[in-house]
């Protein structure tokens, strides 16, 4: 892992962000240095990749992720993503990336209308992204899902494009928990550098506190990706 030593990964905190401590811990477990990024700053502090963590940024008022997508830090994240900076959006972070236009589609209220917290089985559909290179397509992993607005939706053309280009990164298996179209749990940008998913890999890095350690692979994958960038 020598090529990844000293890697710095930013974790953004918006007002109402909840899983920033967890994302930072996952970065640490992966062997990199977590760097706190503040929503109101126009400064990515020279990080090699960015995690937009889960929570209820700005209370999810208006629409989940809508206000956060306009925060000063997101201007920098969008610029960075255009240059190939790896960006991972988890749960609320996924919603924010969709609102910011970095990922296609949208997340809407769960079909069952309840908040759902459960250990969710996922199939890794693509290992060809900055955040999934340590997996093999077809791998099944168990990662906590906890969201009330996690149902992925997109128009037919977008869905077709995502499938055709192999940009569906994670799919729910063993039951669709929220009514997501095509069982989609996570998608990637066209260049595979930006990934968003509803389940929480940062809560599956230690068997003591999570259902598995299956989620750590996202955070180790990006070290290679960032080192090659």
């Amino acid at each position: 892992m020598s090529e990844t030593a000293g890697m710095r990964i930013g974790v953004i905190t918006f007002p109402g962000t909840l899983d920033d401590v967890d994302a930072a811990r996952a970065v640490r477990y992966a062997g990199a240095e977590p760097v706190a990024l503040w929503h109101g700053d126009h400064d990515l502090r020279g990080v090699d990749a960015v995690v937009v963590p889960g929570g209820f940024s700005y209370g999810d008022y208006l629409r989940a992720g809508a206000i956060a997508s306009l925060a000063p830090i997101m201007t920098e994240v969008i610029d960075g993503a255009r240059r190939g900076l790896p960006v991972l959006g988890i749960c609320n972070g996924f919603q924010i990336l969709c609102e910011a236009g970095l990922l296609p589609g949208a997340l809407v209220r769960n079909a069952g209308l309840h908040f759902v917290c459960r250990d969710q089985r996922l199939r890794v559909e693509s290992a060809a992204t900055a955040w999934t290179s340590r997996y093999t397509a077809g791998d099944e992993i168990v990662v906590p899902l906890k969201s009330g607005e996690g149902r992925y939706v997109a128009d037919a053309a977008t869905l077709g494009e995502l499938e055709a280009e192999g940009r569906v990164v994670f799919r729910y298996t063993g039951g669709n928990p929220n009514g997501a179209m095509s069982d989609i749990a996570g998608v990637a940008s066209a260049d595979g550098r930006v990934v968003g998913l509803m389940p929480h890999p940062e809560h599956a890095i230690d068997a003591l506190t999570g259902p598995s350690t299956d989620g750590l692979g996202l955070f180790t994958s990006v070290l290679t990706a960032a080192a090659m960038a």
Partner: protein
Amino acid sequence: MVPDTVTPPADTVEHAAASPDQPQPYRELGLKDDEYARIREILGRRPTDAELAMYSVMWSEHCSYKSSKVHLKYFGETTTEAMREKMLAGIGENAGVVDVGDGWAVTFKVESHNHPSYVEPYQGAATGVGGIVRDIMAMGARPIAVADPLRFGPADAPDTARVLPGVVSGVGGYGNCLGLPNVGGEVVFDEGYAGNPLVNALCVGSMRVEDLHLAFASGTGNKIILFGARTGLDGIGGVSVLASETFDGSGTGQKKLPSVQVGDPFTEKVLIECCLELFHAGLVVGIQDLGGAGLSCATSELASAGDGGMHIDLDAVPLRATGMTPAEILSSESQERMCAVVRPEDVDAFMAVCRKWDTLATVIGEVTDGDRLVITWHGETVVDVPPRTVAHDGPVYHRPVERSATQDALIADSPDALPRPAAPSELRDEILRMAASPNLCSRAWVTDQYDRYVRGNTASAQPADAGVVRIDESTGRGIAVATDCNARFVALDPYTGAQLALAEAYRNVATSGAVPAAVTNCLNFGSPEDPHVMWQFSEAVRGLADGCAALGIPVTGGNVSFYNQTGDRAILPTPVIGVLGVIDDVARRVRSGFTGEGDVVVLLGTTADELGGSEWAHVVHGHLGGRPPAVDLAAEQRLGALLAAAAADGVLTGSHDVSDGGLAQALVEASLVGGCGAAVELPAGLDPFVALFSESAGRALVTVAASDADAFLVRAAEAGVPGVRLGTVGGDSLAITDLPAIPLGELRAAWEGTLPALFGSATD
């Protein structure tokens, strides 16, 4: 009286002194004639409208504990110096604080939000969570976990279908948005709660010992800063009269908003982070949350705990409604507000932190010389009182206490005559029926709506016996917390029933691998004006206090909720007991399921024929009568010590409390939670029915590796804990003696199907 369309002129102290005979609506505000007379005596004049509002909310049962005080002091009398050793703050503070080692302190408390949750389930439950979290913040701690003991009417009652989904989504909606893992709680159904559900909320916080903050206002010239949300017309009168008229007495009610408060968890989440940053920067001298009775409570409590007086300028309070009267501003229960005492030289730095978090903060007054709480509005004095008389010198009632004759009939109605299943197939059917019953079935429908993962420190959550949360990542030090109460036992014998609730929570902490350290409670009872209810209450308090003394762990705080009744019918007496335990390394926590093929299943404790108040009598016969199981606290202590020590040594591969539903239900849960079946023989010499369904206390079901089994049984015997080898973990069915084996699939369908069938599937 003045019309509502303009702000009425203030009823000033000067005006009050000059108009002694002006009639005042004190009865409508819940004050008795003699209480009103006492206020006049304290002040030497009639109170102003604002003063009357303050006294009426602060002297309400909820805030003053006027009916319970004379009984609650027994907790203090029975707490020894040894029990106090680890207690850094106790009863009377916002929440109790316990030293848990390595320089860490933990604070925890449980409170009720019963009546608001019946009126408006979502907001009632949500703001219940918000309120208890602010109590924990007010001690200087970071809230780290919540848990919610909930009780409803019958599961299939139409009103339960109205109340339960709203309560659960309110608890989740608020707690999830705050980023606090929900690690436990209870869901209980009983006819006794129809029309009066119990919504209790527990919060745990952790801090470094030196960061402990207490609520007091000292230092003349120090500033009083109100921060967080604006003050509005919501929640006015929530404390004293749930649906009161506006206080101006005009009765037109034009300004009346719901008496149930409305929560904004986003504001509270930001307030948590803001508060912690303020604490760490050393900018806070004293702090108090605003909950029941709003500013009336915060200002009078801060002032009376300090060494001076206080001046508050109501014109400075940021409002979200126009034309609010001083009484309304003082009584508002708008959520997400805190009040801090800050040195003048720190005010700028304090404001800078608040600005960073976009938290509104306003200097509304200062600590003064003297001993009066003076509140001005529009330049005139509307309150001038000795603060202690508001906050602490409320009325004390010695309510009549009388055991009703109906209690004898209840005890005489023993469960011994109830038909018991005997044939193996009947016993098998009864196990399945019990597993599917509302009080024993899977709680996943509820707990899957709560985030249990956030912050990444949850080592156990539902369906575990106790929630286990890490507080120090470098050492693994953590806490365990459980709440319990079998209210049917309390109804049969309040003294013993309260001890059984304590014993069960204590045991649940021990089965998780932690050492019990402290107790909190939420005492939910009917009307204190009913002598039988007061008898139940006084017996339960005595039982709990004596029980804590026997176990050597202190009560660090609690909450009393009276008037839980519909008409003349009181709820089952429900003293919910929370026990907090300490675990040196959460990696040593023990889970409750069967997981290791070949592990040996051991039953610890003694089983007797004890079915009074049992779940079996309730489910199968709708029966409540007889005597509750006997309680032996010395045996509980021996069992607890064995469990904690064996967990620390890594001997236990699984550990589960045996209580509601007896050994049968413990076996069902261990199989389903762990995902592994078992083959067991019921203990020889016991009637199989009794072995399966008796609810004798002081028992646990544990598993150990086959190679450790003999040594463990010897160890148990040496510890004075009876242990019997029941069988072996393995396979995909639960096989008990000569009962037809129950495939886990069939068992799971029974256990998991009930709540979704009643309240709808959560995922489709």
